[in-house]
């Protein structure tokens, strides 16, 4: 039952399946109803499931997450949309102080099956606050799980798994990959939500990435192959928890690691990976773990974003630097 579809459509189909399967699943957010979301990810859902299950909310992100928490306490499983990455911060308080901690605060009596969907990342020529990658700000918070699919098939299945999770999941959607198509088999047996996957095998160096940067890393590996270098590409898929076992296994083989993300390098997930992999693989490493990502500057205006975002050459440069050790 494999069908080729764009990532946006895959998420839409996954939400549809969840709404059909469980009457407690709700979709909430700004413009998610009649409009179908600004990226059309929720297109047609309100028409088919009604406005009490696919809910256009007031323009108040804290209110969206705060009421979703209340609905979860009542037994619902809300999937809320934050329209853009840079708009999540009004809800940051509710996510960090309430959503993340409610289960622990209740000594396990209360569960918080809430999915927060956030279209994130740059590369679409947008105005300020529409291109950010704030995943590290959430990964730092215990109680949250953070995932980001890189392709349509993962987007479909990881959404199914996120909705089924009894923990709050922040689901980062790489908006610049929304229209990339891939085969989605809706009858497949999916990989576990928080396991990384080797998407290209190699022997000389490991590129680790998630979300929008996986495709770039695959392109880098293809370019490097032309120069006779064999790069392994690891799609991490989950930022919290991170699949360190998978990274370790790959690095023990290749002995070199470059982590790539759009988010700023400073205090980013690459830093955490570098530290832990250094602990785990100290005697295997031939080079320090290198990171490629955004700079310690506000996300730049669109005409500069190509300079800010990791691209083929910047990642290849890091690969060369690693291999030079």
């Amino acid at each position: 039952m494999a069908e080729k579809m764009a990532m946006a459509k895959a998420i839409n189909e996954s939400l549809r399946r969840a709404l059909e399967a469980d009457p407690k699943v709700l979709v909430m957010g700004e413009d998610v109803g009649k409009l179908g979301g600004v990226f059309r990810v929720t297109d047609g859902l309100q028409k088919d499931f009604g406005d009490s299950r696919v809910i256009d909310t007031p323009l108040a992100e804290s209110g969206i997450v705060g009421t979703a928490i209340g609905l979860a306490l009542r037994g619902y499983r809300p999937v809320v949309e934050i329209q853009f990455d840079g708009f999540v911060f009004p809800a940051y308080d509710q996510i960090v102080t309430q959503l993340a901690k409610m289960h622990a605060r209740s000594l396990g009596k209360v569960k918080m099956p809430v999915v927060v969907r956030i279209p994130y990342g740059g590369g679409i020529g947008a105005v300020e606050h529409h291109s950010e990658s704030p995943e590290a700000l959430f990964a730092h918070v215990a109680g949250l799980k953070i995932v980001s699919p890189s392709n349509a098939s993962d987007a479909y299945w990881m959404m199914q798994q996120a909705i089924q999770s009894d923990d709050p999941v922040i689901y980062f959607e790489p908006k610049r990959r929304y229209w990339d198509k891939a085969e989605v088999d809706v009858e497949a047996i999916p990989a576990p939500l928080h396991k990384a996957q080797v998407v290209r095998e190699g022997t000389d160096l490991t590129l680790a990435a998630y979300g929008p940067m996986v495709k770039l890393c695959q392109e880098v590996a293809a370019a490097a192959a032309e120069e006779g270098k064999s790069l392994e590409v690891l799609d991490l898929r989950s930022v919290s928890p991170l699949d360190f076992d998978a990274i370790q296994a790959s690095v023990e083989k290749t002995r070199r690691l470059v982590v790539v993300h759009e988010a700023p390098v400073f205090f980013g997930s690459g830093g955490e990976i570098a530290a832990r992999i250094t602990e785990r693989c100290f005697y295997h490493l031939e080079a320090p773990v290198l990171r490629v990502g955004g700079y310690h500057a506000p996300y730049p205006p669109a005409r500069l974003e190509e300079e800010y975002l990791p691209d083929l050459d910047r990642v290849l440069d890091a690969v060369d630097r690693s291999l030079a050790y």
Partner: protein
Amino acid sequence: MTVDSSAARKRSAAGKAGTTGSKADSAGTKSGATGAKRTTSTTRAPRTARAGAKKSTEPELVQLLTPEGKRVKNAVYDSYVAGITPEDLRGLYRDMVLTRRFDAEATALQRQGELGLWASLLGQEAAQIGSGRATREDDYVFPTYREHGVAWCRGVDPTNLLGMFRGVNNGGWDPNSNNFHLYTIVIGSQTLHATGYAMGVAKDGADSAVIAYFGDGASSQGDVAESFTFSAVYNAPVVFFCQNNQWAISEPTEKQTRVPLYQRAQGYGFPGVRVDGNDVLACLAVTKWALERARNGEGPTLVEAFTYRMGAHTTSDDPSRYRGDEERQAWEAKDPILRLRRHLEASNHADEGFFEELEAESEALGKRVREAVRAMPDPDHFAIFENVYADGHALVDEERAQFAAYQASFADAEGGH
């Protein structure tokens, strides 16, 4: 779901809720004229002015019992307490006395070092018992961290409230056992949870109601404003019960608002009403009315219980730095327990035996609480890692194992105990 604004408008137009006319303007001029940047030296002056001006410009309260304990008629709200029996009145009195006793014991336990902190409800017993006793078993309560009286009404064992103040947990009861949510410390957050819960109640087609507690300080929080918006738009069956105890730690109400708080509701399209928060009967009646509106699909209501925080914000606070004794003394004359006692005595609804028995029950409660707290064990070290996630998390597992190994290293050093 649709907005049932017509019903809401009719209700507020009926005149229960005062209007935002000249009263609001004069209140606004009072606090607004001096602006936000008051100097320290002028801080006291406006407060005196406020206390004086309040008598003439503050809107009327819904009151069924005067501070002297005299029952006064109220055409709108009398019906909500029409069936109340002398036994019910004694019950309300008992609730308030026991709550105050429990609260005093907790304060004492903090002073003895048994609790790290306590947030006293002293003075707010009527607001909490009146509103708490208005709820039905299937209703759901979202408290702040000071609703010990409401917890009492919901049947939460008072000793369970003390775990978080002793530092052995962050919330020691199952919210669904009594439909009493965990204490929420971040100011105002719970009003959104209450609203979402109420939206769920409406989706389920149930006729339960939800009540969210918050204070005058919280009224400034964006989450409270958003909860008003959401509940109004979705016509959610929720009552916002604001205990205006006049002080947000050191900040008086005029640092939070230019209009009487209950009037905020009007801008959101639902009724607001100010009730004498030291009058347990009025709080009971007004909350019953508001909960009934919620059950009938008439949407949210804001109740402002006008009361006074007789004690400090918490045991860590020192009110002598920001308010004078005379204000407290003025409120002591309006004490919620005293006024019901006067009423009971004047109406011959309670004899000396009742009060003596209650005194003994109070002391027994104090003793039980004291002993329970002292016997409360410290949590196991590994509780740090428990319930971080419902479905587990690899990093938590890894760090738990590291912690265990570290702990075990001491045992090895001590000879393998």
